[in-house]
């Protein structure tokens, strides 16, 4: 999979010292019915981080990602992704820098894998020979070549999920938002696919099953009572000898000031 910015630049000591922020959330709130699911979320994720978002209320991380992606509205607060705010961003700029994959792949089922990648590329402003080259590359990388021209309604969830991830990565986004992704994949395939290349790419994964994200994330965020109760490197769990689970994250949140 191509990455347009050399990873070496982002892994340089200078970039490390500057700690550029890829995701910034300020005072974000959203009520669903009478429940305040998000109630003043403050979050700053550095460029290149791989973050697990977990929640005592399992709805909270998913809602946060969907607000970030522009699929749900916030009652108050702001979200800045890769320096862009959804309301003011130019569509082409947004789609080339932000990717989202939901728990439901959402791709129109009457399309083929090749057509869905083609539409994703066109909507991202990727034209001509570059579009064809990238589509072929992604079809091969995600093992979709054999069913490339078959409508997705005849394919299983595994293919749909892989196609959705490929379509999200095709514009080479700087920030990738994954809401309960790849649940239909075998654990080994899931891990392989979620180890998304690109050191400068920031990945946020919302999951109800934190243990499944082991080996994929380097940072954990726990949302409790609508707020960020924990934002720590995953190594903190090892230091405190806690498991990567909701219980472990809750215990760590109680330990870390």
């Amino acid at each position, binding site marked *: 999979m191509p990455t347009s910015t050399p990873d070496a630049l982002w892994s340089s000591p200078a970039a490390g010292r500057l700690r550029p922020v890829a995701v910034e959330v300020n005072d974000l709130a959203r009520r669903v019915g009478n429940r305040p699911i998000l109630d003043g979320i403050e979050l700053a994720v550095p460029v290149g981080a791989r973050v697990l978002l977990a929640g005592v209320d399992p709805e909270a991380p998913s809602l946060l990602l969907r607000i970030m992606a522009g699929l*749900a509205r916030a009652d108050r607060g702001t979200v800045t992704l890769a320096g862009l705010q959804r309301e003011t*961003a130019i569509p082409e700029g947004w789609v080339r820098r932000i990717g989202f994959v939901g728990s439901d792949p959402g791709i129109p089922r009457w399309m083929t894998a090749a057509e869905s990648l083609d539409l994703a590329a066109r909507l991202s402003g990727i034209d001509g020979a570059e579009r064809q080259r990238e589509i072929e590359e992604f079809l091969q990388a995600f093992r979709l070549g054999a069913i490339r021209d078959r409508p997705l309604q005849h394919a299983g969830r595994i293919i749909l999920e892989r196609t959705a991830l490929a379509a999200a990565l095709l514009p080479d986004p700087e920030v990738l938002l994954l809401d309960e992704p790849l649940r239909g994949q075998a654990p080994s395939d899931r891990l392989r696919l979620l180890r998304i290349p690109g050191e400068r790419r920031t990945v946020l994964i919302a999951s109800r099953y934190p243990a499944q994200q082991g080996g994929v994330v380097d940072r954990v965020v726990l949302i409790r009572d609508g707020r960020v109760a924990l934002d720590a490197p995953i190594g903190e769990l090892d230091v405190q000898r806690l498991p990567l689970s909701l219980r472990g994250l809750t215990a760590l949140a109680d330990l870390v000031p």
Partner: protein
Amino acid sequence: MILTVHVARQLWIQLRLLGLLVLPAIAAVVAVIVDGQFGSEAGRLALAVGFAAAAVLSAALVGTGFSEEIGSGAAAWLVVRAVPRTALIRAWLALPALAVLVAFVLAGILAGLALPPPLEGAPGPVAVAVTVLAAAAPALPLSAAALAIAVDASSRVTLVTVVGGAAILALPFVLLGETAVHPASGYWLVAGMVPADRPITVGLQAIGLCLTLAALAWAGAALRFRRRDL
């Protein structure tokens, strides 16, 4: 343009576009059969009723299609690719509206050729054109209203609401009849129930009313869609 082609393909593959194109033609064919069996007055009445039914079913096709687009997550898939919500719902009205217009014009020509002219003497080409457009026009506000319903409803609820709602809304227009100009006056023109010296005036007023209602209903649909979680 990318979005327009995408919505057109979706409508075509789901056979909705075919439905939009053939419904008025079916109404015209039924009217010709009724005309042959029961006379021209019954034939024209059958054409008016058939066109009204075609408009309602067309709106139901549009509404259920949009509801499925939202329910399946396909709308969300487009929105995360920075497709403006307003552009998406606009495409869902504009494309079917174009298809309905073409279908009604063709069906109107078919019926015009097959059925004898209403009242005394043949109407001029302008009167015929206005009559056909006035008969097609109610499909627009109905489709826009169907989109507004579909924003928050399942396709089944949308179908029932559109068809049931249209039947209830039709009652006052049936009671008003040809004595007043209303959005459904085009059907009275088709049925030949408007005096021969007034079809253009009545038709244009009905078209204007339909366009106004369509704009209001579409604006409501767009506002609801902008606020909806996908």
